[in-house]
């Protein structure tokens, strides 16, 4: 495991609430825009490709067919 999944947030309730509140005024399309910006900002902050690929795989569990999870950049 390179992705750190141990508790790291000093104020987990505060961050959870801040995330949820950020979407309060947003319609679905705006929420998607917000998601996308936040993901890119955080992905760049994390920086480590292995960590990011692992997070992508875990987030996709149960949603993305298993045989495609490791196949994020298939050729052709």
């Amino acid at each position, binding site marked *: 495991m390179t992705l750190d999944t141990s508790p790291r947030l000093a104020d987990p309730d505060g961050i959870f609430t801040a995330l949820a509140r950020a979407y309060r005024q947003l319609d679905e399309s705006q929420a*998607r*825009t917000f*998601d*996308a*910006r936040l*993901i*890119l*900002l955080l992905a*760049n902050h994390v920086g480590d490709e292995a960590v990011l690929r692992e997070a992508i795989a875990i987030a996709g569990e149960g949603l993305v067919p298993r045989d495609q999870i490791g196949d994020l*950049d298939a*050729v*052709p």
Partner: protein
Amino acid sequence: MAGDQMAGEQDDGHAARPLRRPVVVVGGGPTGLSLAIDLALHGVPVVLLDDDDTVSPGSRAVCYAKRTLEVWDRLGVGEAVVAQGVGWQRGRVHHGDRLVSEFDLRPEPGHQMPAFTNLQQYLLEETLIARAQALAGVDLRWRHRLIGMMAEADHVALRVDTPDGPYDMECAWLVAADGARSLVRRLLALEFIGQTVRDRFLICDVATEADFPKLRQFWFDPPFHRERSVLMHRQPGNMWRIDLQLGWYADTAAETSPARVAMRLRRILGEGVAFSVESAEIYTFQCRRLERFLHGRVLFAGDAAHQVSPFGARGANSGVQDADNLAWKLRLVLAGLAPVALLESYNCERLAAADENLREAARAAGFIAPRTPMARALRDAALHLAGRFSFARTLINSGRLSAPTVYVESPLNTPDATADGFAGGVPPGAPCVDAPLGQQGEADWLLRHLGFRFTALVFAGDPPSPGQMAQLAGLPVPVHTVIIRAAGSPDEADGGFTDTEGRACDRYDARPGTTYLVRPDQHVAARWRRFDPAAITVALARAIALPAAA
């Protein structure tokens, strides 16, 4: 037989039995012509068949990358192509009405060739044809159409149709450079693997006197073409290549009507700007390749072997680089100096290149034409954030421009010895990098002295002795020695060069004694910290696919 090889076109139809040619190339586009020229310069006579007698209509390929220009310079047409074309190295990417990123493909000086040259494909082909015609070894046969073939164990039998009737011919090796609709591929019933990009593009060549900047410009969602992308490139003669994304469901007939095309172009070029449309066609793009590029005695190159979307200029460039990889291997195999396994390395190395190009094309297509709403949101987020943050500018992918493939996994490479401690430089499998040199006070370029033969490129400390150089030159596959001395060293009478600006040493991570073994296609086969003829001989055997000594 030499007599057969020198036989002319008229002899094929009249011989008692079909004449056996060493190499027949099918297809007279940039790939086939480059290969024919390269083979002839290697001393291999070649017959080139093309079912047409005109250069390609309109303008298809436009952008030729530095590495391709270097290949053509080796073939004697680099300067002619650059002189006719429009050189460029900068690009701009816009989102809506904002400039979001700029790039410079060649930020450092000290290269003979520009980062890119734009030239209409038919002008390029005319230049290549003139070069081929000047070579006795190239037998160009226009309006000679391959109509049948039979692959045998030691040759390929061909039937060729001409306006004067059909004839039969044989060749030891057949190279299919006959494009995306390759007849050779269909005759062998070989399938492509890959996919069609589900998008349509209107590709226009437009003449206008208006003065737009001499750079690659790309727009995402511009005011003049909402929700889609536009790419604009300069060509010689006040000609502009403009690609407009139309989407998969575009009405092809309506979109190519002259009034509709003019309306779209007027929005881009501006009201009141006079222009004329030279060509306007709708394209869909394929991203696919053959499973293998070598089938018995038939080799595939260029679009006949692999196709990618044009964002990145990876089509013609990769075809010419296929030719660059193949010519010297065919020559050594035909001469009996290397085993057929050397041609298998063409398959391995150029498959790796095709996969790299396909991956880059797929990534660019995913950014230019996102396939899901969330992919679109991520794309737009990158473009939005790019206005403020440099990290987001690195995410913008309007097509990563053609760069030569490093044959990292090639069986021809001799890996670096850890003890040699190379940090950077040009690794095994990579193409040599150019650098300015001097000789007896004359300015020169490194790449001009590499190619066609194996070369030991020696950064002298203690230069090799004449005896050592003669030993290498006397091998069955000779190795020529090129010596480079540090700036300020006195000229010696050994034909060596001076690293006038210190760039060669920098680019090759060289210390006194550092030695590179360079292949005939200017790719690095091996490198060491000292000049060692025994090590060079072993690496040479590996680079021509000879079985390892027991």
